């Protein structure tokens, strides 16, 4: 079901929702089956209400790792034909197929779900004078805002988001995630406070290789949205995840800030904490809070940000949502509940609750902290 047949709900009004999130990451880049993350979500069944679930996996398309993988929902065949014309114009399509699914009675009304491995059309890219990523971002925004009945819900390299209306464990079964392997997985179960969920509105929300799963309802939403829309982003879903993803993209890709700096902006320390720091650090934190004041996020949130080669877990500055992080060997786990982590790995080396605003950033061994 796509946005226009929703009687104008999601994407036109803002719908708060509660949620469950979980993530796993292998620092050594070891491949882990998608089944693991699905199992973690299963134990948090009660934190979702069946109106949205989803996953993101990294390192899942090694054979096409240099191509952008577009995952697209289509309302119907004519929407698909229309959109494919555009995709063909903008990109060289190396491979396309339906995304394989397993029918389950608990997931119904599915749209057409297609996957394209693409590279920007060389001449078009040159003409546009944009870098590759920006070119792809603009094409995706174009499809999502001007092609009725088409919605690109994943557009990164060697990664993919999978989401649907349903409980997360059913969504995992539906997308046959047990058949994928990756070094990083995140999962999400949604508890929206409205009736019909929309497939595109489920999490993760992704853009290029960033994906965000989020639990919370941010009170700074409109301040953040109206600011970020100045920089070419269009918040069409009116969800927190969408705006947080754009903020992360803006700060890391366009402003070239590190993830620690991003955390110092979106979950900035209180002024009283900043005052107590040594002069250099005080100046740095004051600078970031002042220069990017409209990107401070308030209200409860816990997010897992996935990106190529890394994952970041972050809580709002008051820690108004639960989140625990754990380690076992080279593996790092994060989830709304400890039970979900124990489901993935019963024997842990260490488990803790990060402080509000204190990011936990993990990257592949040998990789930098920088997203890009």
């Amino acid at each position, binding site marked *: 079901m796509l946005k226009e047949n929703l009687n104008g709900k999601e994407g036109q009004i*803002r719908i*708060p*929702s*509660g949620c469950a999130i979980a993530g796993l990451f292998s620092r050594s880049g070891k491949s882990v089956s998608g089944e693991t993350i699905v199992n973690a979500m299963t134990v948090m069944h009660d934190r979702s209400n069946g109106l949205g679930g989803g996953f993101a996996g990294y390192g899942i398309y090694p054979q096409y790792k240099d191509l952008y993988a577009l995952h697209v929902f289509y309302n119907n065949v004519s929407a698909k034909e229309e959109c494919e014309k555009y995709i063909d114009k903008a990109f060289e399509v190396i491979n396309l197929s339906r995304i394989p699914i397993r029918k389950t009675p608990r997931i119904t009304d599915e749209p057409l779900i297609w996957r394209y491995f693409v590279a920007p059309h060389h001449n078009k890219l040159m003409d546009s004078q944009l870098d590759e990523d920006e070119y792809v971002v603009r094409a995706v925004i174009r499809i999502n805002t001007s092609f009725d009945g088409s919605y690109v819900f994943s557009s990164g390299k060697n990664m993919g988001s999978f989401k649907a209306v349903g409980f997360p464990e059913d969504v995992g079964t539906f997308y046959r995630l047990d058949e994928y392997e990756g070094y990083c997985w995140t999962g999400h179960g949604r508890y929206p*406070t409205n009736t019909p969920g929309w497939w595109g509105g489920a999490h993760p929300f992704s853009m290029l290789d960033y994906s965000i799963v989020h639990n*919370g*309802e*941010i*009170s*700074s*939403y*409109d*301040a*953040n949205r*109206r*600011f970020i*829309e*100045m*920089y070419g982003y269009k918040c069409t879903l009116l969800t927190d995840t969408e705006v947080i993803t754009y903020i992360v993209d803006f700060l890391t890709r366009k*402003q*070239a*800030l590190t993830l620690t*700096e991003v955390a110092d902006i979106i979950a*900035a320390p*209180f*002024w*009283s904490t900043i005052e107590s720091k040594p002069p250099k650090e005080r*100046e*740095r934190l004051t*600078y*970031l*809070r*002042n*220069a*990017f*004041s*409209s990107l*401070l*996020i*308030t*209200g*409860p949130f816990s997010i897992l940000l996935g990106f190529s080669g890394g994952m970041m877990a972050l809580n709002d*500055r*008051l820690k*108004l949502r639960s989140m625990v992080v754990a380690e076992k060997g080279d593996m790092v786990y994060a989830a709304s509940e400890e039970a979900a982590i124990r489901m993935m790995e019963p024997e842990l080396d260490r488990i803790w609750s990060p402080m509000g605003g204190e990011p936990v950033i993990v990257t592949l061994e040998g990789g930098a902290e920088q997203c890009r």
Partner: protein
Amino acid sequence: MPVDFMYPEYEIARNDSRCIRCRVCERQCANEVHSYEESGNFMLSDESKCVNCHRCVSLCPTRALKIVKSDHCFKENANWNQAAIKEIYKQSGSGGVLLSSMGNPERYPVYWDKMLINASQVTNPSIDPLREPMETKVFLGKKPERIERGPDGSLRNNLTPQLELAMPVMFSAMSYGSISYNAHESLARASRELGIFYNTGEGGLHEDFYQYGENTIVQVASGRFGVHREYLEAGAAIEIKMGQGAKPGIGGHLPGEKIVGDISKTRMIPEGSDAISPAPHHDIYSIEDLRQLVFSLKEATQYKKPVIVKVAAVHNIAAIASGIARSGADIIAIDGFRGGTGAAPTRIRDNVGIPIELALASVDARLRDEGIRNNVSLVAGGSIRNSADVVKAIALGADAVYIATGALLALGCHLCRSCQSGKCNWGIATQRPELVKRLNPDMGFRRLVNLLTAWNHEIKELMGGMGINSIEALKGNRLMLRGTGLNENELGILGISHAGE
């Protein structure tokens, strides 16, 4: 001529059984309303001189006095109301322009009162300001477009000069001359105590107040009174006054009788000469000229101070603000049509300009549409009456607000709207030493500090209710507002939904 006789608007109701003939009212009234009748041992009043400033009422030891509206009336007429008729009599008698003071009192909509603020329930928590930090500090000034890093990869502080405010409220421009020395001292000391700023207005800065420079915004207006190098360097920021909400499009006029002593010295004009600020700046006939003045002032102060450009809210305000945002200015102050004044032609005050709520909303939206909202900070004034107005202004998109009438009320002003007479019984809008000394700056400053401290508590309370613990997350957060009784157009301009939506 009998036609010129006007029955007074107010009557003095003196309860004779309470009156002890102490004659306080007589001594307190600079308008000479009260007098004592020796032979009969009773008090007389000439209400034709009464401006309804409540000075006598407040000081009468036995509460024998009150001022009531006269029930004398003209024949009812929905078109030719009492004020309209009287103004004709006045003007046909005097041949002069009608003068008024303080802000536009007419019945135009007050949009603040048609907007309601949100609060959290269930899906996200409200935050208790008594238990959790709640932040109201703001920085005003341009934000950098890109970050820069030093050779070691650390962030370079590439911010242009900023103003740091402990809370998002400042005292807006009121010149020394239009208000008294003691009023200025109260404002200056309160700003220092509160960690905010007051504004000199266009009359220069008295040498006694240079010590409050860190909390002072110095103004440069079209008359350039009192502007010199040390003056520019004395303040934390410089404000170019292009216009004022109470009288958009016209200049200022401080009559010669107020240009006495220190005021003449501070303004750098001879005693007794009228201080006339021309309507436009004669070096600014266009936006590129404004840019030159902005940069001349920056040059003169070695680029160490942010420059504010203050404009009146007029019809085309969004386009004007967009021009200013590209002029090199760091802050735009917009003054709504309810903004106060020491004196303005009545017709202008009551008929020119637009409400600040609409002006602010459309400027903020325009600057965002053009992607230049980060070039400048926005300060809204004229008129902000309480902490809820502050919260609503910030949610519409202001970085901070200016207050002036509210500050004068805290100092004792009773909004009698007679400032132009120079006989303010509360020691505010006057230069008569015996009246000025009625305003004790020790108390005045304390009352201003109390007022804004109280507002700050209320702002935090309102923010906590919305689940917001830092004021920057409220800025431009229009989802936190809903309109009541507004039409589609008004909602569209304000960029808010109707209550219930």
